[in-house]
């Protein structure tokens, strides 16, 4: 799997390259500025891009803007965005096109290599990887609303993992329950919240995120 990596701090870039290579990814390019990233995304056609939000030369949200522009040129181009802070505002912009293949994680998540690599693979396959912090922010905002109150604690737990983009199998493994139980919980959640049921993992995530983000 070919990866384009954009990160301006040498130590982090080097660390990410090593980690990705250790998990058999092929690094198509590891760049440090916005213009270089745009060029690499346009020319190298990677399977997935791992991008830091803040990049030189402007040190603003250049990485995010480059990624969004590349996705406009090539809809569905898988992009995993990394940042020192997560903002719902950015998550919303990334998810806006509804094409999937989006990841948005805190840089801390690279501490857990297995989970991080799992997120990269999920995004590359057209799935979603949302940082738990984004989800908890969304949930805290919705907590006073009635519809969220009707979920049982376990259903809430499942919903958080669904919103992060995990598959039924991964949720089952994490909560130590059977996949069938997860499927039952999710169909309950969708029923209670009035969302259209869907077997497609990615559409399911987007539905939940859109629901949480509403209002």
């Amino acid at each position, binding site marked *: 799997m070919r990866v384009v990596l954009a990160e301006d701090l040498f130590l982090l870039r080097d660390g990410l390259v090593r980690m990705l290579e250790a998990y058999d990814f092929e690094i198509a390019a590891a760049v440090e500025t916005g213009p270089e990233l745009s060029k690499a995304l346009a020319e190298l056609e990677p399977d997935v891009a791992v991008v830091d939000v803040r990049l030189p030369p402007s040190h603003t949200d250049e990485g995010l803007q480059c990624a969004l522009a590349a996705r406009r040129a090539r809809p569905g181009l898988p992009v995993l965005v990394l940042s020192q802070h997560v903002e719902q505002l950015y998550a919303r912009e990334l998810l806006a096109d509804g094409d999937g293949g989006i990841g948005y994680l805190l840089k*801390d998540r690279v501490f857990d290599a297995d989970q991080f690599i799992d997120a990269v693979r999920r995004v590359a396959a057209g799935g979603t990887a949302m940082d738990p912090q984004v989800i908890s922010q969304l949930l805290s905002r919705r907590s006073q609303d009635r519809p969220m109150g009707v979920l049982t604690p376990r259903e809430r737990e499942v919903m958080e993992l669904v919103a992060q983009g995990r598959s039924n199998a991964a949720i089952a493994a994490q909560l130590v329950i059977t996949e069938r139980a997860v499927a039952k919980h999710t169909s309950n959640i969708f029923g209670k919240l009035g969302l259209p049921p869907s077997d497609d993992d990615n559409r399911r995530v987007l539905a939940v995120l859109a629901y949480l983000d509403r209002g």
Partner: protein
Amino acid sequence: MTVFSGRLRPAALAAGRGLFLSVVGLPVSITLFVLAMLSVAFIPLGIGVLSTPTVLEAVRKHANQRRLWAMTWSGVRIPVPYRPLPKGLRAGVTGQVERTTLMLRDPATRRDLQWLLVDMTAGTVLAILAAALMIYPVEGLVLAAGLWRVFRDDPYWYGVVPVDSQTSGIAALALGIAIFHIGLRTSGPLLRAHFLLAGTLLAPTRDQELAQRVRRLTETRHEAVDTAASELRRIERDLHDGAQARLVAMGMNLGTIEALIEKDPARAKKMLAMARESSAEALTELRDLVRGIHPPVLAERGLGDAVKALALRLPVASEVTVELPGRADAPVESAAYFAVSEALTNAVKHARAERVYVDLHHAEGMLRISVTDDGGGGAVVGSGSGLSGIERRLGTFDGVLAVSSPAGGPTMVTMEIPCELS
């Protein structure tokens, strides 16, 4: 007809106010002037020292009342020029002597007294004219209606018309109507002229303005320096007690792990997990600290999006409208951001609002921000409150803050900061 009635109301109002100013204002001005002169004259005798501050205080109140009317009645802005008295003046006779000296030394005092003189003469004439042009015509009407009969033998001079018959009475009415038409057009401007005249003496001179400005700059500079210093202290403390301490603990753990790794790999593994956890906690603390110093979204996107991101983090519904064609200077953006942040925190925490509205726009060289909530109201700008902190912080940029928060709500905090966008 509509043009006429549209003019009648303001003209009649101006006439009434002119009458009021001459009837009430004139005696007060005369009394105060006489008292002030006497009081100053008696200073060598000692009595004057005791009475002068009180009398001058009264003069200032009288002048301030006129400043207020100038603004509310004619839209003439007359700034207040007085030097503030230093805090902690001594009580008793010595304090009174100090107060007298300070007030007499203030050039505004001399100008106040000059104004009293002008107000008694030219000022009063203008006010009376504003009133007379609307009232005098009424007399013409009454004469024509039948009052002329009283003057059948001895003609009464209404303006230039000797009234002694119905015909001359009607001539008086014609003259009255003419004057009335002049009054319709000039009563308002005459009242305004009265206030403009007052303004020439009551407004600060260029020197006074500059002195005031220097005073204000000194104050805000002190506050800015204080704020910066206490911020640095807070950051130092947070780093010292937080991230720094965690890194020390982590280093210690790693040392232990090194020693354990061959003897007791299982425990070493457990400690590694702990070390990873503390590094994650250190990161979280640093992230919060950074957010408090300069929020990352502000650096990446500017004020509008930073406020939007802030509103999204609130546990209540929010509406943010932004109309900023460019970005302000970084310090202004930062001050504005933290001001909005504080106002929002107040709305959620103290007013227990369920909905907040934030509006940001730039017009006439001003960044204007309003934060409105549907909460319980009752917010005040007082010592120690977050709002006075905002006020100080905005003061550095000549920005101002106004709070409207009746008990029961809603609360509206408005801020204005002069700045250019780039």
